[in-house]
C-alpha cells in the first residue's frame, strides 16, 4: 500500500496497514512528518495559545505581579517551546514509522494511473511506484479570496501568521470559523488590538447562539471587536504604515497586519487525480463512501482532503479505517459521535446534537439544562467569568442528545458527556454520580439538575 501525506490521517493509515502485515510506503512532500497540523496549524497555534493564556491570567492578576508585556517581544519567544515540542513530535513519529517498518519517501506524488504513482524528489530522478492500494491523505491549505492579495508580509494566511517576527499592534482577522476565532482570541489575549470581520452574523455558526454569544462577549471583554454581517470589498497594504480593509457601507479599518482565515482547500493540485480516474466534487474535495473509498476501487481517501469535519482527531480515525477497509479488515463500529474542540480563548467544545439540531429532529420541546461556571465553586476559584455548560435532552427530559461547553478546559470536559452519549445514559447519571469537589465537572451535575427540575414540571 502507498499512503500520500503524513498528517494525522496519513500516519494512522500507514501504521494500520503495516500492522496488518502489508508493505507500506508513506510519501510526504516536506522533509518533516506531520503535515500542516504539526508544523503550521494545530500544534504551533496551541503552543502560542498556552502563552497567551498565561499572559491573560497575569494581566487578570496584576496585583500579584506588576506585569506588562514588552512592546518588542518576539513572537518566537511566545512560541518558545515550539521547537522542542515539534522536535519531540517528529522524533516520536519517525521512530514509530521506523519501528513499524513503514518506508518513508520524501517527494511529491502524482498519479500516472489508478495503481501507479510518479514521485518527484528534490534533486533526484523521479521514481515510479506501482501498488495495489493507495490512500490519499494530502490535507488542505488556506483558501485565498481574489480580493485579498496575501503577500505573507502584511496580509497573512494561517500558514504564515506565525512567521511574524513581532506582535503587531493591531490585527484584522477575516473569517468567523474555527481558525479565525482561535487566532483572533489568542492575539487579543496577547494585547493585540483585534478586529474580527465576517459576512455572517455570528462566528462559529455551527454552534448554538448562546455559545457564540458567550465567545463574542469574552472576546470583546478582552478588548476585541467583532463585526458580523459585514462584507469585505477588498483589503490591501497601503504602502506606508498599515493594511486597509474596505467593507461594504464605506467602513474602512486600518491595521498593522491582516490574517485571512477564509476556509481551506484540499491539497490536490499536485496529484494529477484525473490520471487515476478521479474527479473533484463541486466543493473541490475528493468524494468517498462510508468506507472512505473513492469512485476508483483501489483508491481511498481520508482527512481534510475529503472535507468536514476536518479535525485532526477525526482524520486519525478516518486514516485507520481507510486502511482497514482497503485491506478488507473489520475495523469496528464507526462512531458518528465526534467531539468538536475549538481552542479559542475561552475554549469551546461540543459533542452530539446542538440545541438547534435537537429542535429540528425532536421538536421545539427539547429540554435543555444549563450551568454557569461562575456559579460553581471551581469556576469561582478559577475566576471563569464567561463559562457555560449545557446538556440537551429529548422532550421527555431523559435521553441525553448533546453537550456543549464554553469555558477554559471545555475540550477536556466534553469527554464526560461523550461517554454518557456513547453509553446511551439518561441524564440522571450526572445527578447520581459523585464528582470530585471542587471541579468543573460539577457543572454536569448542576445542568442535569436543571433538566430534572424542568422534567418535574411537565410530569
Amino acid at each position: 500500500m502507498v499512503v500520500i501525506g503524513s498528517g494525522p490521517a496519513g500516519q494512522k493509515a500507514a501504521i494500520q496497514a503495516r500492522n496488518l502485515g502489508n508493505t507500506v510506503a508513506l510519501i510526504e512532500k516536506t522533509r518533516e512528518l506531520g503535515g500542516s497540523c504539526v508544523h503550521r496549524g494545530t500544534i504551533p497555534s496551541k503552543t502560542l495559545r498556552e502563552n497567551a493564556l498565561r499572559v491573560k491570567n497575569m494581566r487578570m492578576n496584576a496585583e500579584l505581579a506588576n506585569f506588562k508585556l514588552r512592546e518588542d517581544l518576539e513572537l518566537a519567544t511566545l512560541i518558545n517551546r515550539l521547537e522542542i515540542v515539534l522536535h519531540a513530535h517528529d522524533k516520536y513519529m519517525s521512530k514509530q514509522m521506523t519501528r513499524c517498518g513503514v518506508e518513508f519517501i520524501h517527494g511529491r506524488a502524482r498519479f500516472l494511473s489508478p495503481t501507479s504513482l510518479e514521485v518527484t524528489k528534490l534533486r533526484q530522478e523521479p521514481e515510479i511506484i506501482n501498488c495495489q492500494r493507495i490512500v490519499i491523505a494530502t490535507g488542505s491549505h488556506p483558501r485565498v479570496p481574489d480580493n485579498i492579495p496575501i503577500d505573507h508580509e502584511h496580509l497573512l494566511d494561517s500558514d504564515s501568521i506565525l512567521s511574524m517576527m513581532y506582535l503587531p499592534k493591531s490585527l484584522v482577522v477575516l473569517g468567523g470559523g474555527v481558525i479565525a476565532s482561535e487566532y483572533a482570541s489568542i492575539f487579543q489575549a496577547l494585547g493585540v488590538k483585534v478586529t474580527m470581520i465576517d459576512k455572517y452574523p455570528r462566528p462559529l455558526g455551527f454552534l448554538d447562539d448562546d455559545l457564540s454569544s458567550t465567545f463574542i462577549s469574552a472576546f470583546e471583554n478582552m478588548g476585541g471587536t467583532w463585526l458580523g454581517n459585514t462584507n469585505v470589498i477588498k483589503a490591501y497594504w497601503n504602502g506606508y504604515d498599515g493594511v486597509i480593509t474596505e467593507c461594504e457601507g464605506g467602513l474602512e479599518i486600518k491595521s498593522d497586519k491582516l490574517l485571512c482565515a477564509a476556509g481551506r482547500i484540499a491539497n490536490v493540485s499536485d496529484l494529477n487525480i484525473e490520471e487515476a480516474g478521479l474527479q473533484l466534487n463541486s466543493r473541490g474535495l475528493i468524494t468517498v463512501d462510508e468506507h472512505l473509498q473513492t469512485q476508483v476501487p483501489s483508491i481511498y481517501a481520508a482527512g481534510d482532503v475529503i472535507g468536514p469535519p476536518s479535525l485532526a482527531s477525526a482524520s486519525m480515525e478516518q486514516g485507520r479505517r481507510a486502511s482497514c477497509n482497503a485491506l478488507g479488515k473489520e475495523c469496528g463500529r464507526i462512531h458518528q459521535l465526534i467531539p468538536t474542540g475549538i481552542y479559542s480563548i475561552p475554549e469551546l467544545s461540543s459533542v452530539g446534537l446542538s440545541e438547534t439540531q435537537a429542535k429540528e429532529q425532536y421538536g421545539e420541546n427539547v429540554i435543555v439544562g444549563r450551568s454557569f461556571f461562575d456559579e460553581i465553586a471551581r469556576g469561582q476559584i478559577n475566576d471563569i467569568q464567561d463559562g457555560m455548560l449545557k446538556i440537551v435532552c429529548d422532550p421527555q427530559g431523559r435521553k441525553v442528545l448533546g453537550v456543549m461547553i464554553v469555558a477554559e478546559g471545555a475540550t477536556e470536559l466534553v469527554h464526560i458527556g461523550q461517554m454518557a452519549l456513547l453509553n446511551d445514559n439518561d441524564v440522571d447519571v450526572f445527578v447520581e454520580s459523585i464528582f470530585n469537589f471542587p471541579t468543573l465537572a460539577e457543572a454536569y451535575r448542576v445542568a442535569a439538575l436543571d433538566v430534572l427540575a424542568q422534567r418535574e414540571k411537565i410530569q
Partner: protein
Amino acid sequence: MTTEAVQSPAFLQVEPLLREKTLNGQIDVPMLPEVAGKVVRLTQDPESDAIELAKLIQSDQSLAGHVMRVANSAAYSPNSTMVSLQQAITRLGMKVISEIALAASITSSLFDAPGFEKYIQHELRFSLATGLWSKEVARVCRKNVEAAFLAGLLHDIGRPVAIQSSLEAANELGVDLTKDDVYLLESHYQRLIGSRVVEEWEMPASVISVVRLFDNYSRPHKGQDQTMVVVAGARFAHHFIGKKQGEDRLSLEELTDSNVLADLNLYQDDIEKILEKEEVITSSLEVMHS
C-alpha cells in the same frame, strides 16, 4: 581571482597579526553613518512614526536626495513623481524607505581600502541583491519576510572590513600584499570580522546569527530558518550577478541543485516562482545601487 593562491611571505607575515587583531577585538569597525544607525533603530521601535523618519533622513542631505531618487524611480513609482520625503514615506512605507536608506549608507566609501574600491562595490551590490532575493525566498517558504532583507544585506559585511583590516595590518608591518594575498585573508577572516561588525552596529540578534553561521547553516541554531533563507537568497544573487567581480555566475542548473534550496524544501516550481521576480529585483537593484 582565486582563494587557492600560494601563501606568499607577505601573507605569512600579515596573517598572524590579522588573526590576533580579530580574536582580540582590535579590528577597526567602520562607523555606520549615524543617520543609518538611527534609521535602523527607529524602524525597530514600535512607537516610531513616519514624521520622525522623514526628519531623520532630511538631516542628511545626500541621503535624502538618494532616497528621493530611488522613490521616484520606475521600480517604485512607475506612474507618479513624488515631491517630498514625507510623501515618499507615505507612498512607500517606513520599512521600504529604511531599507533604501540603509542600503544607501553602506557604500564603498565607508571602507578605507585603496585599490579595492570597485571590488568592494561589487560585493556590496551582491549583498544588496541577496537582501532582495532573500525576501522572495522567505515569501515562498512562509518565513518572515521583513527580517530577510536586512540579514541578506549584511550577510557579507565582514568582507570589505577584512580587506581594510588586511591592508592596515600590512601597513603596520611595512609589507606589500598582492591582491591574491588580500583575497585569501578576506576569505579566511571575513566571517569572524563580519560578526563583530554587526554586533558593533547593534543589529538584531537574528542578523548577527545569520552573519555568524552563514557558511555553516546546517548547524542547529536559533534562527536557522532565517539563515537558510539568506543563504538561498545569496544563491539567487550569485546566479544573476555573480558573487565577485569578474567571477562566473552560477548556472541555472547549479542554482537549482543548491543544497540549501532542497533543505528549504523548494521544488522546481517553487524555484521558478522565485525566479519570476527577476525583473522586479533587477530594477530595484539598479535604482538602489545607483
